[in-house]
């Protein structure tokens, strides 16, 4: 299935991209699985998305927990903890 992935702030800078459309292999069906899938690209991906890194996620613009399911056509965003206000 195809999804849209977005990156913000320090994550966007580390990865050198604001996002992409990506075709996911079967079995990548949660936010955590997608994060692991991207981290396995190695290099900056592994560094920025490693499990020990504090990365938050949103699915279709709603903040979610790592176990949240993802579906074809979803917009999934990864970003560091927010610092507004």
């Amino acid at each position, binding site marked *: 299935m195809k999804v849209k992935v*977005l990156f*913000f*702030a*320090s994550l966007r800078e580390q990865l050198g991209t604001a996002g992409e459309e990506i075709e996911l292999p079967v079995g990548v069906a949660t936010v955590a699985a997608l994060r692991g899938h991207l981290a396995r690209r190695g290099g900056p991906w592994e560094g920025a998305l490693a499990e020990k890194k*504090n990365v938050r996620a*949103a699915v279709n*613009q*709603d*903040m979610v927990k790592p176990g949240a399911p993802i579906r074809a056509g979803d917009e999934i*965003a990864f*970003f*560091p*903890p*927010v*610092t*507004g*206000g």
Partner: protein
Amino acid sequence: MKISVQREDFDHGLEVRNLYKHAGAGAVASFVGIVRDVRMTLEHYPGMTENALRKIAEQAATRWKVMDCTVIHRYGELAPHDQIVLVAVASAHRGDAFAACEFIMDYLKTQAPFWKKEHRAEGAAWVEARASDDDAAGRWEPPARKAS
């Protein structure tokens, strides 16, 4: 309810006065967040930001008697002493206005997708989230139920 995510500055006095007109309103509480002594860039997640702020304001309205509220948050380049954020709440009495205003600010700090990057002489750096902000939002959550 007015929710705005904008590059431009806002008029605090005007925004607060706009909340006076509600029948029965006896109090307006407001908070303004300003930039400390460092230049910064504020990034946000267009679309999600507005939704997140609206949800936080709606949550406040379910917990306190909120007649109306205004939340404005800026993004882009900001200079020392610039205004960043305004939260203003109109209510019948001060208690609800104060509490709802503080609740909206505390949740905004941990739930609204904004990120600050500070520009100092030694270089630019993203601001790290603070655990104290999570603590501030957490104190509004209902106490955990005791095991029976």
